[in-house]
């Protein structure tokens, strides 16, 4: 089962691909339908520039599908705006009588411009890009109408497309928000079940201990001689000592709330994020970003090091321009999921000499009792999820920024 954050990213990518497929259909309809309309109307030859404009839009769309990134989105919007202008101008110049009847056909490129999608894992940027595409298309249409001195005819289709497109991504955003609050975290439920089992194991060991010590001593008092010999006395005192050592005599403490206070890691994460943003990787941190918990200094160092190494890998190898860090917290562990929508890789094909993930993430995290899981496949981006134990009770071993900086050291990405 995929972690929720990874599954959410897959869903966003699928909706974006659906939008691109519709955009492609719209462009093909324009490419085939508009010349047919010309031929049927007995007009002069269909302008080559309009055909080339749509072909250029299709090429930009293919680039976006193959390599979704900020660059290809911007490229699609720029090429698309120019394409809509050239297509409209070419089709309508001298043939303004086509309006308004043919509007449904000649505004197809404008509809395609709305369906720009997103290169990331989150739905909301897609909404903003869609609105950008709609405004660009509308602006270009107004410009063409003004140049050709014809009434402005935007048609319903781009607005309808924008409404449906935004509804799809907004709906997805709401569903994902609802999932975060309502859908159980299966892995957390499993951990709780394990904790109950461990607690039962402790209980059973305690029962065995009491049976072997206290109950035997009580039986001795009930049935033994009036005068205790030295061996009996020593055994009873030893049993009392054993109970004290095993902590079984401790009163049940009230549950202690995890203490706030470890701002060191948060500051460190922010410093790492800022560093990578300066280096050209747009990093977004979401999830339990305000959560407070304590970790041992060496664990903080491992978290910071693994985070840095994961981002370093994205910058060096993925080709992605953005990454998302999702922080989540359970009673026993803090988990970071680092997502990118880059080119991904075949994990089984990594050579033994590649130390990036193996030592900088796996080695570092596992050395302090943490776990790492990586999902990646060519063309499907990469998700690195690592969990590290948090301390159950506050203590004086709070990590400091300096400790963590000192231990994080250089990465080997």
């Amino acid at each position, binding site marked *: 089962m*995929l972690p929720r954050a990874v*599954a959410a990213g*897959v869903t966003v990518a*699928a909706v974006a*691909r*659906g939008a*691109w*497929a*519709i955009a492609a*259909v719209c462009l093909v*309809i324009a490419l085939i339908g508009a010349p047919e309309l010309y031929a049927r109307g007995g007009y002069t030859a269909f302008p080559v520039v309009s055909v080339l404009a749509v072909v250029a839009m299709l090429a930009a769309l293919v680039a976006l599908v193959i390599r979704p990134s900020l660059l290809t989105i911007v490229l699609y919007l720029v090429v698309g705006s120019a394409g809509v202008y050239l297509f409209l101008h070419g089709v309508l110049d001298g043939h303004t009588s086509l309006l308004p*009847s043919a*509007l449904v056909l000649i505004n197809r490129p404008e509809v395609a411009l709305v369906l720009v999608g997103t290169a990331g894992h989150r739905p909301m940027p897609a909404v903003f890009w869609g609105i950008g595409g709609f405004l660009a298309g509308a602006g270009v249409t107004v410009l063409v109408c003004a140049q050709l001195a014809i009434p402005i005819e935007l048609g319903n289709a781009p607005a309808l497309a924008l*409404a449906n497109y935004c509804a799809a991504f907004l709906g997805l955003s709401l569903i994902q928000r609802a999932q975060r609050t*309502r*859908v*159980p975290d*299966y892995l957390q*439920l*499993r*951990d*709780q*079940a394990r*904790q109950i089992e461990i607690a*039962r194991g*402790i*209980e059973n060991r*305690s*029962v065995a201990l*009491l049976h072997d010590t*206290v*109950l035997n001593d*009580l039986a001795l*008092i*009930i049935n033994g*001689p009036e005068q*205790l010999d030295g061996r*009996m*006395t020593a055994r*009873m*005192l030893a049993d*009392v000592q054993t109970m004290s050592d095993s902590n*079984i*005599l*401790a*009163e*049940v*403490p009230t549950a*202690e709330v995890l203490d706030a206070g470890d701002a060191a890691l948060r500051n460190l994460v922010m410093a790492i994020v800022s560093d990578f943003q300066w280096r050209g990787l747009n990093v977004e941190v979401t999830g339990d970003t305000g959560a407070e918990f304590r970790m041992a200094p060496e664990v903080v160092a491992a978290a910071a090091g693994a985070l840095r190494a994961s981002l370093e890998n994205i910058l060096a190898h993925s080709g992605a321009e953005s990454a998302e860090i999702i922080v989540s917290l*359970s009673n*026993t*562990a803090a988990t970071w999921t680092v997502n990118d929508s880059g080119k991904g890789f075949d994990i*089984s094909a990594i050579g033994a000499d590649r130390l990036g993930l193996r030592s900088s993430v796996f080695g570092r995290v596992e050395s302090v009792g943490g776990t*790492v*899981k*990586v*999902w*990646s496949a060519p063309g499907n981006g990469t998700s690195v*999820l690592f969990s590290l134990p948090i301390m159950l*009770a506050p203590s004086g071993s709070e990590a400091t920024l300096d400790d963590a900086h000192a231990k994080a050291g250089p990465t080997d990405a």
Partner: protein
Amino acid sequence: MRRAWTRSPQEVDPLSWFAGPRVPILFSGAAVAQGIVIVTLYWDQWSSVLLQFLAMPFFLAAGLTTSANTQPNRRQFAPHHAAIALLLAVGGLLVSALGTSGGTLPVTQWWTGIAVAATLASLAPYSSAVQMIVYSIPATLVTGFVGLAVFAPLEHFWSPTALTVISLGPVLIGAVCGTVFSYTVVDKTLALLDTSVGSEESFLKVDPAAPSEQLGSIARVSARVAPFLAGVANAGRITPSDRALAAQIARRLRTELVSVTSRSWLDVVAHETGMVVSDPGRLADRMNESQRAALRGLLVTALENSVVDRSTVLIELRAQPDGSTAVALSIDVDLPEGRRLVLLAPYYLTLKMTVDDLSWDNGENMLVRFRIPPGQ
């Protein structure tokens, strides 16, 4: 990647589709809302506005049908479920066509193509890419033919081919989008699942200073015993009153110890929550870790909700002749079915992944039954 064509998104990641059952209702609602706007804007150009409004419930019914058939407590969404939704949509299309034919509406403003497309697209999360293609072909052809029949006598600007393409355009778009969506989700999810590396283990810490409530009770008894034992040992002799007190403490401690050792994990949950467990054979301990996690999630969520009377929650486990364990959970929930589903469906889905023959009978007393296979 043949599996990416033949499996549905819901199959490859059921938990991520918890909110899925609402999607068809949202889709059909949005399509009908657009229909209302278009019908109103072109009020005088329909041959019958009444028939347009009569067509709308067909699409809503299609969405509701799909939604009902994709509820977590239903069996897997099947092609005949999709066929019912699509037939309802085609019914709406025909009613709308009757109310459009003979009017003056431009073909480009016929709203029913969008509604059929919405019905088709809403099937995507629960259907494989191949199924989406199969559903799309008749839906697209019927819409195209009906569009041509209705608008050919009315429209002179467009050729018959163009009229057909314009009529079926929205359905074609819905079909392409739905198919691409289904394929992409399955393809990406399977690719990521197949190639993931790393440990799934996580950390477990049980604070030794925080034993369970039951163990605390033992600890309290034991805490009284320690000074008593130390006192007797230090005195070096046993008095009659020592013997009487020792017998009293021993009885109580033995009762506590027997209670602890005879409890299953489910008894621990019952002890914490107040529900009633009937498990004479201690069959709960046959459940594996995943089943325990899922069932505990369902129980705790139900018991923590104020509308559930804790004392009415009863879970019974009985051994079956084939070695399996039958489990029945009954809960009095004072909630309508929809809200009950919202509350418990995610946990139900989690449980569904781990046990056999899970069923959910709704009524005043909600009854969840399942079977734990033998040999676990």
